[in-house]
């Protein structure tokens, strides 16, 4: 597509053989295109972002899930959108345009829409999908946001957008399709909902 890129893979010792596959990919595509930066054990998403950024040499960073629920075909669209409005952040949204999901039952959809509604009412963030994690950031913007964000999990993704709005960054949106884990199982239990609400209230009170 004419864009120059590198792929940074951060694996926290996944038990499913991710590391070996990544090494094979590195052999095929070259270590200038695929950078393996594994870590000894599971250290969390936020630190993975920071770790990855240290090794990133480009001007923009795309964050995405590696389990194919985020399809790389959207990356050129993100890039195009960014150029269109010179946005600091381009966020993939499942809720607008022809964005959507596949593989979610009614209950999961209801929880998703309900949580998003509450978040919109309380935080009025100016973005339609706050818990999504398929985004393009300007490198400096990501670095700045990482310094400021303190939460974990879903709330972390929300906090990034809320803080970005606070700091006056511009946010564009691209509809994406989220195909729920082809490999592995997804869990959305009561615990996650409770911590989401707690995090939301914290954000409400502190931003």
């Amino acid at each position, binding site marked *: 597509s004419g864009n120059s890129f590198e792929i940074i893979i951060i694996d926290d010792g996944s038990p499913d053989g991710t590391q070996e596959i990544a090494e094979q990919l590195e052999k095929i595509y070259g270590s200038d295109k695929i950078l393996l930066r594994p870590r000894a054990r599971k250290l969390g998403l936020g630190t993975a972002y920071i770790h990855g950024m240290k090794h990133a040499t480009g001007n923009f960073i795309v964050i995405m899930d590696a389990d*194919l629920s985020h399809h790389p075909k959207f990356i050129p669209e993100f890039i195009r959108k960014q150029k269109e409005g010179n946005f600091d952040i381009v966020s993939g949204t499942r809720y607008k345009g022809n964005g*959507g*999901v*596949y593989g979610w039952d*009614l209950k999961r959809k209801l929880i998703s*829409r309900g949580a*998003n509604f509450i978040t919109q009412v309380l*935080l009025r963030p100016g973005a339609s999908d706050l818990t999504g994690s398929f985004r393009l950031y300007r490198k400096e913007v990501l670095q700045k946001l990482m310094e400021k964000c303190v939460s974990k999990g879903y709330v972390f993704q929300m906090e990034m957008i809320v803080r970005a709005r606070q700091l006056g960054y511009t946010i564009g949106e691209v509809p994406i*399709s989220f195909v729920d884990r082809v490999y592995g199982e997804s869990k959305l239990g009561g615990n996650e909902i409770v911590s989401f609400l707690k995090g939301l209230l914290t954000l409400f009170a502190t931003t």
Partner: protein
Amino acid sequence: KLGQWLCGLALLGSAWAALALAPPGLQLPAPYRQALLPLPVYLLVAFGCYSLATVGYRLATFNDCEEAAAELQEHISAARADLRR
């Protein structure tokens, strides 16, 4: 945000209280006062209905990307074949 909400609610709350619970000398005509008194409850119920309607509507129009899932499977097979070479 909490600050904004509290300010807004305080403003509305005091305006409502001033108008609805004013001393006899300053009261509005009776019909207005009768409508004003339950207003907060009406608004709450209205907001509740709006929320349910909105979430319901969004739930119903939540796109299901079947084509995306099918396309993904194709891409996976193509990538596998490609990498085997």
